[in-house]
């Protein structure tokens, strides 16, 4: 009975992690069609920002939820102004440019932080569920991911800012004819996407051995989740994360992490074969 409860929590946690790591990419790629190969490095920088902030004395929750997104958002802003802005619409060129950026960021991180930085511990204690100990931090991550999805939906649906963003993504010419600067909108969207990546890195920092190359492990999964999701940002992210998370965790419990990863990849291949437009190309069509 309590094993079933632990199992459920692990699945929810797995879905939440997929949502978290893909949210930034969903905004940047899903809305702007910019392939940001440095997404993993943005997450890594969010993690390091959290560690530095905590070591400077800032409360860990503030460091994770405020400092990390802000810092990485600003870095994203600079990257957008200097690099991405010139490459809109040029898919292969952004690929190359962001790949170079990811290498540069890793190198910078190695120079500044080295490879044996002491991390931060999870701020939330474990608790007992029947005869099992569960990490309380997993709940925190589930809550953050849920708030992210709900908040994203509300912003895109019910606020003017969201409306302008959606409009510009659909037709930049119309939006500019109506008086909104697409340049500005792209800039702000990239800022939000980077901030979300920083948030993911900051929240995950207490749970992983943070090294400069940590982000490279997550970029593939993030892309898979976003592309399997399809055109809709919130619903797409939620549906693909759910499918992939459930499948991979189930197989991990049955036979170990290796099979879990394989199952995730096989599911992604099957999904893309059957639903080439992503899940929200066929279900939840037209939804946000």
């Amino acid at each position, binding site marked *: 009975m309590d*094993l079933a409860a*632990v*199992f459920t929590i*692990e699945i929810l*946690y*797995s879905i939440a*992690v997929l949502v978290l790591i893909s949210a930034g990419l969903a905004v940047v790629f899903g809305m702007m069609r910019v392939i940001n190969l440095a997404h993993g490095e943005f997450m890594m920088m969010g993690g390091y920002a959290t560690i530095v902030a905590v070591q400077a004395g800032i409360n860990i929750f503030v460091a994770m939820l405020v400092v990390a997104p802000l810092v990485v958002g600003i870095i994203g802003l600079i990257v957008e102004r200097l690099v991405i802005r010139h490459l809109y619409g040029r898919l292969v060129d952004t690929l190359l440019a962001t790949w170079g950026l990811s290498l540069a960021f890793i190198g910078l991180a*190695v120079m500044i932080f*080295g*490879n*044996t*930085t*002491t*991390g*931060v*511990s*999870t701020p*939330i*204690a*474990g*608790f*007992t569920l029947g*005869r*099992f*100990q*569960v*990490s*309380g*931090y*997993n709940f925190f991550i589930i809550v953050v991911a849920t708030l992210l999805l709900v908040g994203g939906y509300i912003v895109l649906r019910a606020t003017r800012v969201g409306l302008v963003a959606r409009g510009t993504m659909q037709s930049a010419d119309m939006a500019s004819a109506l008086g909104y600067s697409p340049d500005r909108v792209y800039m702000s969207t990239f800022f939000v996407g980077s901030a979300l990546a920083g948030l993911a890195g900051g929240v995950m920092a*207490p*749970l*992983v*051995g943070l*090294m400069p*190359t*940590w982000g490279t*492990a997550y970029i593939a999964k993030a892309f898979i989740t976003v592309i399997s999701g399809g055109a809709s940002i919130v619903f797409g992210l939620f549906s693909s994360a759910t499918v992939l998370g459930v499948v991979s*965790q189930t197989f*991990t*419990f049955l036979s*170990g*992490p*290796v099979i*879990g*990863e394989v199952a995730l990849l096989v599911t992604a291949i099957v999904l893309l074969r059957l639903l080439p437009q992503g899940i929200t190309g066929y279900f939840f069509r037209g939804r946000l």
Partner: protein
Amino acid sequence: MAINRRTMLKGAAAVSALAAPPFIRNAFAETPIKMGTVFDITGIFDAYGRPIDMAVRLAVKQINDAGGLLGRPVEHISYDTQSDMALYTQYAQQLTRQDNVDVVHGGILSASREAIRQTLRRANTLYFYNIQYEGGVCDRNCFVTGVTPAQTTEVQIPHTMEKWGKTVYILAADYNYGQLMARWIQKYVGDNGGETLAVEFFPLDVSDFGSTITNIQAAGPDMVYSALVGGPHMSFYRQWAAAGMKDRIPIASTTLGVGSEHLVLTPEEGNGIVVCYNYSPELDTPANNQFKAAWAEMHGANTVPQIHELAVSNYQGVMLWAEAVKAAGTPDRDAVIDALEGGLELEGPAGKVSIDPQTHHATLDVHIMEMREQRLDVLESFASREPIDTQLVCDLIANPDDNMHYEIDI
């Protein structure tokens, strides 16, 4: 601007004048003795490789400051394999074919050692593997100065079983070291009357251990033995502490700490983990204190915490090789091998180091240590432990042409 023949010739002359200096050799300089190294200085194993590289550079500097070897300077040719196995083979071939080095110190993961050992053997280039590993390499061309399971795990397991109990759950990295180490742990647990509940293997890039932690709790062992390797596997210790398991089931490890991982974990995550190695930064011996002082002078006092077992092993390996060259009077491979087999002894930062002629492995002092407040505090010491595990399978005196990595069978 159109380039005509005149400008072309002028340009060529200028360029060759600039490039000339490297080709102008001081005819009176002594030809250096070349030492090649191949380590992962960047990438996911850089926590191991970077301090190793620093230790080797310190050793070379000390040798050269003392006048070199046999009056000749030691030239250190260093390649960074960037945690990529393919580059090991490539650089090993480059060292033997192009750079023509007299000795290679290299390899960190056992997979990297096996990738280059045969290349170096075929090229008759002396090879030192100065890393703790799973034992069993039997190769006249290869000298191993790292500790093996019979030296460390054989005393670590009874110590922990006496402290904590009889049932063990094993986690290991999924490659040759982890697989073989898991077998050794099971063997010694069985020899001491204990029981291995389960063994789990993880590829080197797995960093999510949630289901594993649940499985461990379901099995309920008295202790967990971890042979996990590398940066991503560090997440296990974090997530273990996050689940509040730190005070419920104790952990022992055969790998944690060799790459200064006790600095990456916070004290709450690391306290109480028991390990057993050749070196601890806390060893209070004249040799260790001198070593740390020299390191601080060359690399800066703030890098002293990065000194770990693998770095010290490589420092001792280089120094041992240097002593052998001096004793042999020449860097030629066969003469150096004879010198090493002849009972040469080195007083290194980790204690006495000598080579066992039967196996070409090192006899070393080992210490059982506990991680406490980001230190490795020594609990118990064992002097001059011979590499008995490799001695069981390897006899280079009787079979000098042996070229095998023997794997233990359980």
